[in-house]
């Protein structure tokens, strides 16, 4: 907060916040008109901002110095997840054993296959650790990444790639393997592609959307709670 007192720092906050929020609003509008997976605001917004940062010969340090307050809002966003969980309490009460089993199986698959595939192609150290939590929604993923010794910034990037790819991959998987239950279709998107997947699941059906959102949140919680254990095993 001290740094806000200097006009230079205040200008930086103003400039980069406006650039970020402006491009985000524009990207959302573009996506609403042309809903293609590669036009996802998740991909378009950072790309546009990166052009400006590079164009102005600024650095990531300048940029994040002006926008850190936005990242801080991820904290309240985590708390806000209480609302959808509360709204879905009937669904949870009815299907919790099935959903829990799916989440445990899916999370284990995410961690194990990320680790194994990364090792197979010769990625190790911080990169490999940062890949493990990428199936989760960002606030949770960044938390877990820090816990297990990864770099939260890198994980944020991997989460975004997972989301963008996952929206498209989910459709491919569903086209190959036909799943009869809406629970399965929703869990597939919620676990595989977090927020983007949840948005896609909402387009498929109401139950799918609700299940995806719920699974996304609960799997984040589950993993944050399990992270200390995983961290212990990795050491």
């Amino acid at each position, binding site marked *: 907060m001290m740094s806000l007192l200097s006009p230079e720092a205040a200008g930086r906050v103003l400039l980069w916040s406006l650039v*970020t929020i402006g491009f*985000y609003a524009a990207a959302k509008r573009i996506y609403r008109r042309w809903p293609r997976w590669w036009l996802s605001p*998740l991909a378009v*917004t*950072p790309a546009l901002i*990166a052009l400006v*940062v*590079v164009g102005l010969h600024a*650095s*990531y340090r300048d940029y994040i110095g002006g*926008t850190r307050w936005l*990242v801080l*809002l991820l*904290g*309240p*966003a*985590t*708390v*806000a*997840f*209480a*609302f959808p969980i509360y*709204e879905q309490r009937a669904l949870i009460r009815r*299907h919790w054993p*099935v*959903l829990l*089993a*799916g989440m445990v*199986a899916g999370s284990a*698959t995410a961690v194990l*296959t990320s680790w194994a*595939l*990364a090792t197979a*192609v010769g*990625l190790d150290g911080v990169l490999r650790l940062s*890949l493990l939590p*990428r*199936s989760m*929604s*960002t*606030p949770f993923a960044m938390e877990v990444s820090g816990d297990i010794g990864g770099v939260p*910034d*890198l994980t*944020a*990037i*991997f989460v975004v*790639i997972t989301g963008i790819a*996952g929206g498209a*991959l989910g459709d*491919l*998987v569903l086209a190959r*393997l036909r*799943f009869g*239950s809406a*629970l*399965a279709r929703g*869990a*597939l998107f919620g676990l*595989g*592609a977090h927020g983007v997947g949840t948005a896609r699941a909402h387009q498929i059906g109401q139950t799918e959307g609700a299940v995806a959102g719920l699974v996304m949140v609960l799997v984040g919680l589950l993993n944050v709670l399990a992270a200390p254990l995983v961290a212990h095993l990795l050491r």
Partner: protein
Amino acid sequence: MKPIAFRSAAARPAATRPALPRAARVARLVRHSPLLQVGLVAGFWLAGEAMVRLLGLPLPGGLVGLALVLALLASGRLKRQNLRRGAQWLLADMLLFFVPAVLAVLDHGELIGLTGLKILFVILLSTVMVMVVTALTVEALSRWSRADDEPALS
């Protein structure tokens, strides 16, 4: 943070409006302002952070805040309409909050080139596996549980 206030506000009929006590007036204000609701959610986050610090809990503060809000919703001390719009706003535009973190890619030149391709390969393949395993597990179990009780939704 005075959760009791919200209950008393919600229970009061609208006819008594002019004589509303201050707590009820605040609650009514909160019900109509998404921005105040965001503030309320942020307050719970700060409370969670404070609890984690003070008690030395091995949990993220946001999670404690989430549990706090869930407990208050479940016990009826916090009404859903005092939270709904703020929470939905935070969640709908959550993307915006981590856009700055994604720009860290500018500081990671090592991701461009072969390393980036390897990472992409890992992410794509692993994501497909996660999806297939999750959906197969849920499908198998819900078919199995459908067999012995109520018809599952599908």
